[in-house]
């Protein structure tokens, strides 16, 4: 029997154009603006996750060897929470906000109305392929937009699962998933969008923004950086160590934008810190971490090679104090700690995004602030200390997307905090209401009446009018009275 070779449609510029046209037609027809439609889509997304948890966990295992608990909690549970929050709060978010008016525009009333931007593009990353795809989509739906989601090809099982599930559960005339790699993304970026949200690295972030510039499309870029952890002495070392481990190896084995990248501590404290790490790491992952089921693998051979390059650099390989084992066939690298790596090493000059944790030593804890500020601004910065003054200094001096004191990564789960970068770690923010706002245009509306038409606005322009205008814009009632009475100086 002759095998039928299916002709795979190529997603090129024309296909991208068609997709945008279709979505624009849906948007213009008002489908996505409808409040009930938004609720239905969010409910459908919840159902989608409830009914497909095992498949999602399996796809994440395929793509990343992600432990079930990480998939269930950091992807599915977090998404469901985000969805439920949007469903609960949306009725407040869509309400216009009253704005105060001043004497200058009396009598008038003013408000700020949220409206959808239109047709938006969400490009997501491979490390939290479900969360980073659907969390922005939740915001875009709540704000009333039509959406194209482009999941990362580096996590292909999750990408196809998303494509299938979204098509089955959600309104395809308004929400589409486009799978593919560089050519497909390029085709999408050529189109005119009303907003683009990109999660990934700075190199591609620049490309996305440059493409958006052609159409004056606003962008949100959620990028990365080297998230430092400052560890002071006089703390509960065990708790601190565990929290660092949870944020590093517990988050996709260090492959997360807010994972602790490196540690800064004093020369005096370093040995104690390393010992604590050794103890807790063994408690969590056993004597043979390469065989632990509780660690994700390195996503692919490219990244595996990249990480080995960082680890095997001459000036660095001698600094390993724990770990360093690797299993190429399973793409696993054991949790590895390095002590006192040189500042000019590769590992200290790019975002690690993997299970290697360098420790830098300084004389005094205060020195860490300048050290961090000498690099580019990271997405997050962490500090463990009980010293109130140091906490204040840390908060004041260190510029990063977000800061956490005495823990790592948990601010991600806090929807009342805007989540986003600054400088090289990105622009824009989302989560909770910030997601709704990021996909909305806040339209200013001023209502004026016909009463009170001050002739002083109009020509002929006279000195008297000038005096009165000065008083009116100055906002002082006394000034206005004086001007009206002609008592003010010209």
């Amino acid at each position: 029997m002759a095998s039928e070779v299916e002709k795979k449609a190529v997603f090129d510029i024309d296909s991208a154009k068609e997709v945008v046209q279709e979505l624009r037609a849906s948007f213009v027809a008002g489908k996505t603006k409808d409040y009930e439609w938004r609720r239905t889509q969010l409910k459908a997304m919840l159902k989608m996750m409830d009914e497909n948890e095992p498949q999602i966990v399996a796809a994440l295992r395929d793509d990343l060897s992600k432990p079930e608990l990480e998939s269930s909690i950091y992807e599915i549970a977090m998404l469901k929470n985000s969805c439920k929050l949007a469903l609960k709060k949306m009725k407040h978010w869509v309400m216009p906000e009253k704005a105060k008016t001043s004497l200058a525009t009396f009598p008038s009333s003013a408000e700020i109305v949220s409206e959808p931007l239109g047709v938006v593009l969400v490009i997501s990353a491979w490390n939290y392929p479900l969360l980073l795809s659907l969390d922005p989509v939740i915001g875009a739906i709540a704000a009333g937009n039509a959406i194209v989601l482009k999941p990362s090809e580096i996590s292909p099982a999750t990408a196809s699962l998303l494509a299938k599930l979204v098509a089955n559960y959600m309104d395809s005339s308004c929400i589409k998933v486009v799978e593919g790699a560089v050519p497909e993304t390029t085709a999408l970026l050529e189109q005119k969008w009303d907003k683009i949200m990109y999660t990934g690295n700075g190199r591609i972030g620049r490309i996305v923004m440059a493409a958006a510039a052609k159409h004056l499309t606003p962008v949100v870029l959620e990028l990365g950086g080297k998230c430092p952890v400052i560890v002071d002495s006089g703390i509960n070392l065990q708790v601190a160590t565990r929290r660092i481990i949870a944020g590093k190896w517990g988050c996709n084995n260090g492959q997360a934008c807010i994972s602790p990248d490196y540690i800064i501590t004093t020369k005096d404290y370093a040995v104690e810190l390393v010992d604590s790490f050794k103890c807790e790491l063994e408690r969590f992952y056993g004597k043979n971490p390469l065989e632990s089921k509780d660690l994700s693998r390195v996503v692919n051979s490219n990244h595996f090679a990249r990480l080995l390059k960082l680890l095997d650099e001459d000036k660095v390989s001698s600094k390993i104090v724990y770990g360093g084992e690797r299993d190429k066939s399973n793409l696993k690298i054991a949790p590895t700690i390095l002590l006192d790596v040189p500042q000019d090493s590769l590992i200290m000059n790019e975002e690690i995004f993997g299970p290697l944790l360098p420790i830098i030593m300084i004389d005094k804890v205060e020195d860490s602030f300048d050290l961090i500020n000498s690099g580019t601004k990271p997405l997050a910065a962490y500090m463990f200390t009980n010293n109130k003054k140091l906490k204040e200094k840390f908060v004041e001096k260190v510029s990063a997307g977000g800061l956490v004191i005495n823990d790592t990564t948990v601010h991600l789960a806090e929807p009342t905090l805007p989540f986003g970068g600054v400088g090289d770690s990105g622009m824009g923010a989302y989560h909770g209401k910030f997601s709704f706002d990021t996909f909305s245009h806040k339209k200013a509306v001023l209502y004026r009446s016909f009463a009170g038409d001050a002739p002083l606005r109009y020509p002929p322009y006279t000195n008297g009018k000038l005096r009165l205008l000065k008083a009116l814009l100055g906002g002082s009632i006394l000034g206005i009275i004086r001007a009206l009475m002609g008592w003010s100086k010209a």
Partner: protein
Amino acid sequence: MLSSMEKSIAELRETFKNGGTKSISWRKSQLKALLQLINQNEDSIFKALDQDLGKSPVESYRDEVGVLKKSVTYTLSCLEKWVAPKKAEVPLLFFPAKAEVMPQPLGVVLIFSSWNFPFTLALDPLIGAISAGNTVLLKPSDLAPACMSFLVETIPKYLDNKAVKVLAGGADIGERLLQLKWDKIFFTGSPRVGRLVMAAAAKHLTPVTLELGGKSPAIVDTLSTTPSKAKVTAKRIVGGKWGPCTGQACIAIDYVLVEEKLASTLIELLKKTIKRFYGENIKSLKNISRIVNKHQFQRLVNLLKDPNVADSIVYGGSVDEEKLVIEPTILLDPPLDSEIMSEEIFGPLLPIITLKNIEESIDFINSKSNPLVIYAFTEDDTFKKRILSETSSGTVTFNDSMVQFLCDSLPFGGVGQSGFGRYHGKYSFDTFSHEKSIMHRGFYPEIEPRYPPWTDFKLLFLKLAYQFDYFGLILLLLGFKRS
């Protein structure tokens, strides 16, 4: 060898790094100095605006000096409040924890301003940048040369030279500035240049605010109410077209939409109002700015060259090349595919487009790209609601023109082709700030299920925790729930 431009910017970066712009007292002192600058140099400012644009002192005060004084005063009174961190709610699960959002300056910012409101569009963003604690390089437009020189000479006399610098020059200087790395770029100008600014910013991942333009329409539906309302409508339209810099304003009324049967009423009212405000004809023209330069003058004259467009002139049309003056001109139904109906006019020509039914104005506006403002003169609440929900623009103003600019509590900015980002009032402070999230945690209590090795118990615990199902958690801990 660094050029003087690069040295200046290095100095700005050094000042910022050393914390020179951080303290509230520094920011306030700069804002007060700016207020002093404006107060002590009012006459020179009027003179420069007259020289560059033929603006009268009243127009200059109303649109530039007064606006700036108000903006500084408002910012000074609110600064402490804006700088304070805002508390964020934290769920019980994280107890004990404290969360807040703290605004921080972005660093070294670049402000490009435009020629039509050379003081407002330069100094209003500057007020925002300083209040947020940044160092600033201001690049005013060289198309308003007297104003630019004034700023270059006068700002250093009042403000901190190490933190605020003004650079004179043309497009070539602008291009060189765009090659460098900034922490924010604020641009007011045309969409064409806006694209170039954003593309340059992309290379450094620099966030931008683009205040652009578009064709801001005025929907007129109040002519058949009362004669006095009709008169006020006409005044506000005239004031909103030729009042600001003779139509050379991003928020000026670009064109008018009115019902066919009311067109002649409108035109008559407009003519009367124009004559009363600006004089009978081009020879006796007063109380109005002129066109900024020959290039813009020629562009506007060319819009009228198309014979079909010229035929549609119902008032005005005279030009004086020497004085760079075009008299207020009204056109009735020029062809919709003419340049005057597809490009932003930015000048004293007012097309009136007639419709069978005023409700058609919604589709008409939607056929063009999103404008900065939609003005709608109507008392019909249903129509107002339709305009709000069925059109998209930076702002909508009902029953007036221009005044939304004075409202500090309303965000001022565009959407789509009219730009993105916003400012005025607190929005200026926000646009030059990074909102940093901060979470404070305690060491106790510890939630063991956060840590591996993973077990079913831990999975169930976390699922309940993430649902904030405190009751379920208690049951689980007491052994009443099974994994």
